[in-house]
């Protein structure tokens, strides 16, 4: 019985690692916890088995699912006008440096940045939190973000403290 359980344990562990979807991995982890609790019981440690069953399979599963629900990408839209896509303007406005600074900020704050280059105008009203729109207005870089977006506010403060981005502007919608 114990060896069968141990084999299933290894199988669920490999399944946890190999799944593509995070939610499936969380469920497999819960199954793993239940099976390892049963193994503890067979080994003669019912105390540990109860604790493992309650904490490992109930609480961590629910906590992981809630955390996955909260997990959001930080989307950065970079707006080009058709004229702007040539090297001189690109260098002059140092988008690359700006993006590097934004990425350092994101890694410090546990955000997952995702840059999207567009030529179309983005509908600003439809964007919620964790969306940032970058564009150039009157030779100044302008950030626009949702009014409740605290992280973007922090990002703006972080950028405007730096010398090379001191002329940066913000627009809140």
């Amino acid at each position: 019985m114990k060896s069968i359980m141990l084999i299933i344990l290894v199988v669920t562990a490999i399944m946890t690692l190999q799944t593509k979807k995070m939610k499936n991995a969380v469920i497999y982890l819960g199954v793993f916890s239940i099976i390892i609790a049963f193994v503890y019981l067979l080994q003669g440690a019912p105390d540990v088995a109860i604790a493992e069953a309650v904490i490992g399979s109930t609480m961590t599963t629910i906590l992981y699912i809630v955390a996955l629900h909260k997990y959001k990408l930080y989307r950065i839209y970079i707006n080009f006008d058709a004229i702007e896509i040539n090297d001189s303007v690109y260098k002059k406005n140092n988008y690359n440096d700006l993006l590097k600074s934004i990425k350092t900020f994101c890694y410090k704050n546990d955000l997952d940045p995702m840059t999207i280059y567009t030529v179309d105008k983005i509908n600003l009203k439809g964007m919620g939190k964790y969306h940032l729109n970058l564009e150039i207005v009157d030779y100044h870089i302008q950030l626009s973000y949702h009014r409740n977006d605290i992280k973007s506010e922090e990002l703006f403060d972080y950028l405007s403290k730096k010398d090379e981005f001191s002329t940066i502007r913000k627009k809140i919608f």
Partner: protein
Amino acid sequence: MTNHSTLLSKSLTIVYPFILIFGFYIVVNGHTSPGGGFQGGAVIASVYISKYLVLPVYDYQLEPFKMIEKFMLVIILLLPLTIFLFRMNVMLPEFNVPYLMAMNILIAIKVTCGISIIFFRFVFFETR
């Protein structure tokens, strides 16, 4: 957790009292059978956690929980100290079992409050 399922809420409503009774059983029989304060407290706290699955609404006051938890910590420190300081375990050996039960119950209350606070803080306040 915006769209909650009717199946889950109905079934968990039936299971609630059984989880509670099971938790109390683990706590009270902790000195003779497997289990104890920590495990029973975690089981009782899972009632609160599964209530979140049924109805994800923040209608709790966390301040009393915090107060009770700190108060329990003080009692858990003071009760064994007084008992061993006045050598009650030698003088009154018939009170050893009630002492163990009382300690289990105190630890269970502390663990329940602690895990509930951690969970609700995480679910309702910790955002990016």
